[in-house]
């Protein structure tokens, strides 16, 4: 490792918790839409929404934490073009992780399905039930999921490029 400064413990916990939940939600999201209507499907959909809203809360906390404690400076091995691209990728990830649960909440409301968070907290409907809006939001939720997968792939590829090929400690900045 050549002089890479690390993230704060809070930033690391928020990052890895979000990462695990988002990867799980993407996998479950792709699987659950093909399920036949069943008890399992009702439960999986409810859990997907509940966990998705946890991700939304974590994303908001990350934005607040980022403002309170900005990310550490990139190591000197990072080239100028990578230095320009890195924040774009990080912001794209953060915005997608914010937008995806919001689009899901909107879609659920437009579909006439209210969310009771973990079966405890009834959440308000963000929009009234509307068939056309539901169709648009469902498409948006799917597109955002694929955009998120693409950006996550690029994010992991960038980390591998730095840490495996260059050994410049990028991954270790965020490692627990």
């Amino acid at each position, binding site marked *: 490792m050549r002089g890479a400064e690390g993230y704060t413990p809070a930033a690391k916990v928020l990052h890895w918790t979000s990462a695990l939940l988002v990867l799980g939600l993407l996998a479950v999201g792709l699987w659950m839409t093909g399920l036949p*209507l069943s008890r399992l499907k009702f*439960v999986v959909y409810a859990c997907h929404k509940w966990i998705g809203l946890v991700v939304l809360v974590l994303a908001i906390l990350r934005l607040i934490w980022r403002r309170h404690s900005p990310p550490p400076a990139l190591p000197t091995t990072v080239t100028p073009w990578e230095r320009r691209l890195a924040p774009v990728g990080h912001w794209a990830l953060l915005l997608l992780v914010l937008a995806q649960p919001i689009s899901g909440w909107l879609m659920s409301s437009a579909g*006439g*399905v209210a969310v*009771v968070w973990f079966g405890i907290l009834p959440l308000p409907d963000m929009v009234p039930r509307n068939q056309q809006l539901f169709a648009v939001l469902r498409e948006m939720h799917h597109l955002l999921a694929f955009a998120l997968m693409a950006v996550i792939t690029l994010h992991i590829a960038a980390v591998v490029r730095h840490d495996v090929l260059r050994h410049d400690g990028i991954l270790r900045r965020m490692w627990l």
Partner: protein
Amino acid sequence: MPASLARALLVAAACAASLLPSPGGAASDHLTIGSERGSMDFFIGDSLIFRTTGGFKSWEGTIKVDELDITKSSVEVVVHTSSIEMLDKQQTMMLREPEFFDVEKFPEMTYRSTAIERLNADTLKVEGEITLRGITRPMTLEAKMIDRILDAAPGKRTATFRAEGSLKRSEFGMIKYIDLVGDKVDIAIHTDAWR
């Protein structure tokens, strides 16, 4: 007579006139309601896992209004069960199956009033019987008149109503997923009425 008193009497007379039979002279009116100019939605709202909504897209009814004695009025509604629609196609298909509305065997759901009582100037309590899947149970609707157009021509909107009530689906033998989706179903009807 002071001018202010005369004005007050005129206003009172106008108000009273609005509660009397329509100027056509009929003390009773036969009005039509239905999906052509209205909506019938339901909300399954007591579940902590899955709260959802849907509607019936084809239904019609008649209201016999006795304006002199509202208790002599009556309502009948027929709902075509195959017109049930959720925004999710799988759920729509499931609700048409024998474990739910069994639309092949029971193509109609009916509601007939048995007693009508005026709660206030705009609101009526309608007691009646709903028949669903061949099972008849009492059901009370609270109907509120949102708008009234006196002298509306035949075929034109003469009133707009909103009626609400609820039932337990288990009482009609629909118990599938009751622990996940809930038992109580709220029903809301919003419709124009016309002669």
